[in-house]
């Protein structure tokens, strides 16, 4: 987990890992390979990035969930109705939300729809940028449970103490520099 004050560079790190933020020095490595224009597509295809204010990019919730499956990479893996409902239920969302317009749902629902979309893509690495900031305690718990799956690797930006407790490694940043690394609560 990445933590630190506002402006310390937490979100920039997530965006840098995906090639969305230019780097002036140093290099980014993913699975021991440097991030290059030719490897960035591979990195992006293994990763789900969900921001604090996620963009759903479609008019209805159903369209938003199915959006990535319009792209060539995922076209052959379109989820079934049952899979859509199952992933929504895991995040404490009812199946009725599929019929709603994206602009009419709350910030918390939007965050969970974006997480559901990431889960539908079956990614192994999740980059989560304060994704529980608009969630109530119950929904937050559901998100914690889903991402506690040992099969998944999660690199998150969060301020939540509960989220902090569940993380294996905590990286503390200050003014763009790494100041501390904590493992399982020990410095």
């Amino acid at each position, binding site marked *: 987990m990445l933590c630190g004050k506002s402006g310390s560079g937490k979100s920039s790190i997530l*965006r840098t890992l*995906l*090639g*969305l933020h*230019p780097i002036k020095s140093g290099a980014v490595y993913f699975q021991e390979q440097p991030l290059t*224009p030719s490897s*960035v*597509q591979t990195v*992006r*295809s293994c*990763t*789900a*990035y969900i*921001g604090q*204010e*996620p*963009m759903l*990019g479609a008019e209805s919730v159903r369209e938003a969930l199915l*959006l*990535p499956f*319009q*792209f*060539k*990479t*995922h076209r052959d893996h379109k989820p079934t109705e049952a899979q859509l409902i199952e992933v929504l239920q895991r995040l404490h969302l009812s199946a009725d939300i599929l019929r709603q317009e994206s602009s009419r749902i709350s910030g918390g629902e939007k965050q969970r729809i974006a997480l559901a*979309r990431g889960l539908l*893509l079956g990614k192994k690495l999740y980059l989560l940028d304060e994704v529980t900031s608009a969630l109530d305690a119950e929904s937050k718990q559901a998100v914690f449970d889903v991402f506690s799956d040992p099969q998944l690797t999660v690199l998150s930006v969060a301020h939540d103490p509960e989220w902090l407790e569940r993380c294996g490694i905590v990286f503390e940043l200050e003014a763009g520099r790494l100041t501390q690394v904590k493992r399982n609560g020990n410095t």
Partner: protein
Amino acid sequence: METLDIALPRMALLYGLCLLPWFLLWLIGLRLSRDIGISILRMSIQLTLVGIYLKMLFDLNHPWLNGLWILVMLLVADLSILRRAGLKARYFALATFTAIASSILFSTAYLVILVIQPTHFYDARYIVPLAGMILGNCLQGNVIALERFYSALRKNENEYATFLMLGATRWEAVLPYFREAVKAAINPTIAGMATMGLVSLPGMMTGQILGGSEPWLAVKYQIAIMICIFTSTTIACIINLKLSLNIAFNEFDVLRDEVIDKP
């Protein structure tokens, strides 16, 4: 049937007509005398020079000279499109020139060689005004297309990044903005065709009728020019946007800040 000439004293009378709107604007407190004066003066000087040049061009009717004139028009249009769309000419000039030159040359050649079939395909009387009219409309369309596309991308930077993160290629991620930009660029032409003759009589047709042509002939030419404007605007906008994609993004598919002209 000859068009009646307007003698110089009557031209002076025509300029006198401008005093009426000038007086009305002055009455409502709009002090635009300087702007109006400069605009009328510029229009008069520019058109006089074009008149002298066109007279020379028509008299000589040389294929290379006609071609050179079209090349100059294309170069001026190229720079004008990029300036008005807020993009830096040093990055996009070649792409925009390629797009407008190919579409204008294609549609003008199609119209002149296949449809009108004059004795010489390079006849200045046909090729210069037709290419000019098509280019003028194509210019407007390309300004709208480029401006809309790059403003939408900058405004929806997060959405575009989301598409990339969801597995879209650069082309798949820009496609919604690309479609909207092309639609906005060709909409005025489509709307213009739908209302043509009902709302207003088009300029070219009016000019031909005043020039002594039969209304039927003027109608045929107007239809021909509208179809060519529609075709060339659509082709130029699509080629222009497509070529610009290779310039405006870095190798990680992120929009390069330096290509946009900051206001």
